[in-house]
């Protein structure tokens, strides 16, 4: 392939990626409810979003679950990565394999398995079941992100710290976390977006009293294309964009 064909090929695929989203964003500013024609610029749809109290509480639900789930998943995932790298223990290979399997396993399989678990335990579906499920599906992603970074470190660094009298806890606090914070932060951000975007698992494990953004969007979308949804989706897209940007900058900085 020559240079021009290559550029053209990339351009077509990027167009495929961004054209639909671009259209969505443009129409979220269109001053008309149903028309495809451009009726002038407006921020009305965004104002409507802001005044929708129901949506506000749903957004708050999503944010709180996202922040909590990402934080717990990051702690668990980081510990997992560190243990996999530093310790010899029984079932280490199994743990490695399980993390991998959890990443590739289809969401729906995890979703119904958790639903069955919660119904066996007679746990009421809502905030807690949602939180526990989100932690569970985010954790392997953190573990993998952090592990790929920690594996690049010189193993002697930990022995040196030990030789100088550091306990495992000190090593975690003073050596591992300061060295790996970019990966840990990236893991948190990834978890947060995963939690914020998840439809399939949340669909099964949350109850009617605890609605969250992706499910709200899902039910709105089923009713058809509307400028308010365009606006909401644009906001979500902008948020994702911001998060990816931070994650990429952070990861690149310390390479």
């Amino acid at each position, binding site marked *: 392939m020559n240079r021009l064909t290559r550029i053209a090929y990339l351009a077509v695929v990027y167009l495929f990626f961004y054209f639909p989203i671009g259209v969505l964003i443009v129409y979220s500013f269109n001053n008309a409810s149903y028309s495809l024609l451009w009726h002038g610029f407006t921020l009305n749809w965004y104002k409507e979003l802001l005044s929708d109290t129901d949506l506000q509480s749903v957004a708050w639900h999503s944010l709180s679950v996202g922040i909590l789930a990402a934080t717990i998943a990051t702690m668990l995932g980081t510990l997992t990565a560190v243990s996999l790298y530093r310790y010899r223990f029984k079932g280490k290979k199994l743990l490695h394999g399980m993390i991998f399997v959890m990443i590739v396993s289809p969401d729906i399989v995890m979703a119904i398995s958790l639903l069955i678990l919660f119904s066996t335990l007679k746990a009421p579906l809502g905030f807690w079941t949602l939180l526990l499920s989100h932690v569970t599906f985010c954790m392997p992603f953190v573990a993998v992100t952090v592990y790929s970074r920690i594996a690049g470190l010189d193993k002697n660094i930990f*022995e040196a710290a030990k*030789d100088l009298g550091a306990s495992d806890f000190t090593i975690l606090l003073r*050596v591992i976390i300061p060295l790996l914070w970019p990966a840990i932060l990236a893991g948190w951000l990834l978890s947060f977006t995963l939690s914020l975007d998840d439809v399939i698992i949340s669909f099964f494990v949350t109850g009617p009293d605890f609605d969250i953004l992706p499910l709200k969007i899902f039910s709105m979308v089923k009713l058809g294309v509307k400028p308010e949804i365009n606006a909401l989706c644009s906001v979500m897209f902008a948020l994702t964009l911001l998060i990816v940007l931070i994650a990429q900058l952070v990861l690149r900085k310390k390479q």
Partner: protein
Amino acid sequence: MSNNLIEIRGVSKHFPDHPVLHNINLEIRNGEFLTLLGPSGCGKTTLLRLISGFEEPSSGAIYLDGKDIAGIPPHQRHVNTVFQSYALFPHMDVFDNVAFGLRCKGIAKDEVEQRVHEVLRMVKLDTFLRRKPHQLSGGQQQRVAIARAVINKPLVLLLDEPLSSLDYRLRKTMQIELKQLQKQLGITFIFVTHDQEEALSMSDRVVVMHDGEIQQIGTPRQVYEEPDNLQVAKFIGEVNIFETKVLAADDKQLQVEIEGKLFTLKNRRKYKAEQTLYTLVRPEDLQVWSPSEVNDTETMFSAVVEEVIYKGCTVDLMLRLMSGKRLAATQFFNEDDEKLDFLLGEAVWVHWIPGWEVILPHEA
């Protein structure tokens, strides 16, 4: 009271899939510079890790300062390690790296400050306090690693091939610096390397290891000039090996036949007649003459020059004897003997001064 700082008694180590050390016995004296020398995989690094406490022996015991140190974790042994490639904490500056050990012990801030400055002055890095490791040269990183290790005032400093990542010239400089530092500190250094030149030039004593066993312990001069076995002789320096048949022997002398010639050699190790031995001669102990320079060729071999390698202060020759055997000979330039420009294919006479050879028994 003995002045052995470390005593290693009958230590063996095997990992699940393979043994690495067999029955190691070794005494390390207080204040000496000891080198563990051997090819990679000979177990030298494992022996070091047993002393530092990162591994525990499968059997046998290690005594440090008279006390059995089995089960004592690395940081409670008065031993510190300078790691291969240094293992400096990349996110901390020089000061924090060096202060790390003291801070782990919870030592007061003032004292930390004072001791870090002191030790950094000693390694001449007191102006680099706030540099990060990646802003330092290889030699400077090495000095930080040493400062970080000695600040805990260990009885023994373990060095795991610390010079292997430096280039040739810097390595030479660092060898001298390390040696000076050891004298200055007055503590025992145990140095691991696979570089025989490094081992010979720095150590008080060298421990030559092969396949998980100690082959020889001695001063650099001893292991080079009087190797205990072929393994040692072959690993340290180049050597020419002659098959030797003993014709007659008494307490003092041996009558032997080498390459069809008769020699009378000193019998240092009580060899008997009829035994088959090896006679070892270093290339620099062989002398090479043109036919015109010699009269008595009774104890000389006739050879043909096959290769001439000019090395500046020496000329290395590769010679072939009548029997087909190849010999390496190193000739030094000196004012008496200007005839060093040998030609390929030239016929020459080779011989060594009796007494410079080493005679070893045939090994099973």
